[in-house]
């Protein structure tokens, strides 16, 4: 594989005296979509903040395109859990915030707004948007600087289920079109399985990687695909602290990547 876009090794991260993260390492290749899946308190959001340069108080080495993380890196975009649009700016000015005051007039803003389906709302204020629309505007803002790596911190957890599915599809199409690598923090197993190439399942107290799941790269995916269901089952097992040895399906998936595997009820039963 090519040079990784991100190499991360966080040996130790403490919050006051409590250890949040204990030895988490992973790489991300350009173009991958990775989910960090775990219970609350496992330090998954902290890892995102470290990569974004928002948190510098840790032991370890993190490299984005070979450079240490820092705020306002042109390589890294960040989408928060809430849209966090600046209420005093129009939607266009929010999207073009990075270009300075009056950034809404930047021609890229218009393109991005069209891509997220908000072309008619360029001059609206955030208060006029629904939750899903606001998060679409936030995604457009995250993509404005054309980052190679987009970090998303539980980006769809505050919207209803239907909106969430549409936003997930929108995110996938944007990532494909812009060639953006995605690192997504989520506690939604369905979401992780549907979006990701790889799922890094984390356990808490202290945060560690409990296991890694590969998902068949085929897209577009069917949400009801039995292979996704199996990945979800495996993820659930990992979250419950079970060992993965006898469950690892990655070889099986690699052997027949496009065949729809029948649901293996034997392997499902343990999770019920």
């Amino acid at each position, binding site marked *: 594989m090519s040079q990784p876009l991100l190499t991360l090794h966080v040996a130790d991260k403490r919050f006051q005296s409590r250890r949040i993260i204990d030895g988490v390492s992973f790489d991300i290749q350009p173009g991958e979509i990775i989910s960090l899946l775990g219970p609350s308190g496992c330090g998954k959001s902290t890892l995102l903040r470290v990569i*974004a340069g*928002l948190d510098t108080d840790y032991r370890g080495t993190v490299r984005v395109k070979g450079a240490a993380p820092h*705020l*306002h890196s042109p390589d890294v975009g*960040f989408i*928060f859990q*809430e849209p*966090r649009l*600046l*209420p*005093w*700016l129009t939607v266009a000015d929010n999207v073009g*915030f*990075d270009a300075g*005051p009056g950034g809404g007039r930047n021609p890229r803003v218009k393109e991005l707004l069209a891509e997220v389906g908000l072309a008619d709302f360029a001059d609206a*204020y*955030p*208060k006029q948007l629904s939750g899903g629309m606001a998060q679409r505007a936030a995604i457009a803002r995250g993509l404005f600087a054309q980052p190679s790596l987009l970090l998303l911190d539980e980006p769809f957890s505050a919207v209803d289920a239907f909106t969430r599915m549409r936003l997930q599809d929108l995110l996938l199409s944007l990532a494909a079109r812009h060639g953006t690598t995605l690192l997504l923090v989520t506690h939604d197993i369905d979401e992780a399985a549907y979006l990701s190439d790889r799922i890094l399942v984390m356990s808490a107290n202290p945060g560690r990687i409990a296991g890694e799941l590969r998902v068949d790269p085929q897209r577009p995916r069917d949400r009801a695909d039995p292979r996704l269901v199996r990945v979800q089952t495996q993820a659930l097992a990992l979250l419950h602290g079970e060992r993965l040895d006898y469950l690892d399906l990655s070889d099986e998936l690699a052997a027949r990547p496009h065949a729809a595997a029948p649901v293996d009820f034997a392997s499902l039963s343990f999770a019920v």
Partner: protein
Amino acid sequence: MSKVSTLDAALAPADGLGGGQFGGRVVAGRILAQFRGWVVPVVLVAAWEVVVRFGWVSAHLLPPPSELVATLIELAGSGDLFSHVVVSSARVLAGFAIGAMLALLIGAAVGLSRALEAYLDPTFQALRAIPSLAWVPLLLLWLGIDEAPKITLIAIGAFFPVYLNLVAGIKNVDRKLVEVGGIFGLKGWRLIVRIFLPASLPNLLTGLRSGLSLAWMFLVAAELIAATRGLGYLLTDGRETARADLVIVAIVVLALLGKLSDSLLQLAERRLLVWRDVYDSGR
């Protein structure tokens, strides 16, 4: 499905009609509400006129409204009123501008820096407790009887509301929005200008409005004591020449100017804060 659409069709016109009637009633209600506000003043003014005309109260102490209008016309016609208004407005404008500007700079610094807050805020809190008139003798001693002490006094009056509201506004800025600024690499004055100031703008405008009304108050304090022009001087002049009509006209003009300048700021507030998602924004 068809049942639902039939129901919709049946409801729609009725709803529309109801809405129209309701809307008409609301408009009529608003006009009535505005009219209601005039009832008490009009009755009071009429009663005032009657009471003085019948000689129940001395016209010397309480000139009737008709005489006040005559005085106003006379003052306006001679150009005296205009020059008093210009002099007073200029003082308020200068004092308010200086006080608000200083409050903006110091308030922003104190709001953003814990160290500066620890050094400066207790002092300003103490200075704030000094009654406005207590400054007057000191300012006269230090600065003479020209414009300087008047403008300084007005600036002191305008300073504190702006300062206090701005500091409170900055302290209440949502940490999450500041973090957005951080993600985009904003630091120092860029962070202040692009995040802190717009986010605390609602508080700042509240402060500016109360600062302006205090500026008018302090103007009268300044002009009552040492002035040869201005509306405060008109008040003193009216008292010394025993002309209650002059005093009342000056009071009314001060009230009008205060209201007018506040309305201008209120207009600016509405235009600057259209983005705000608050309860009364839809009215």
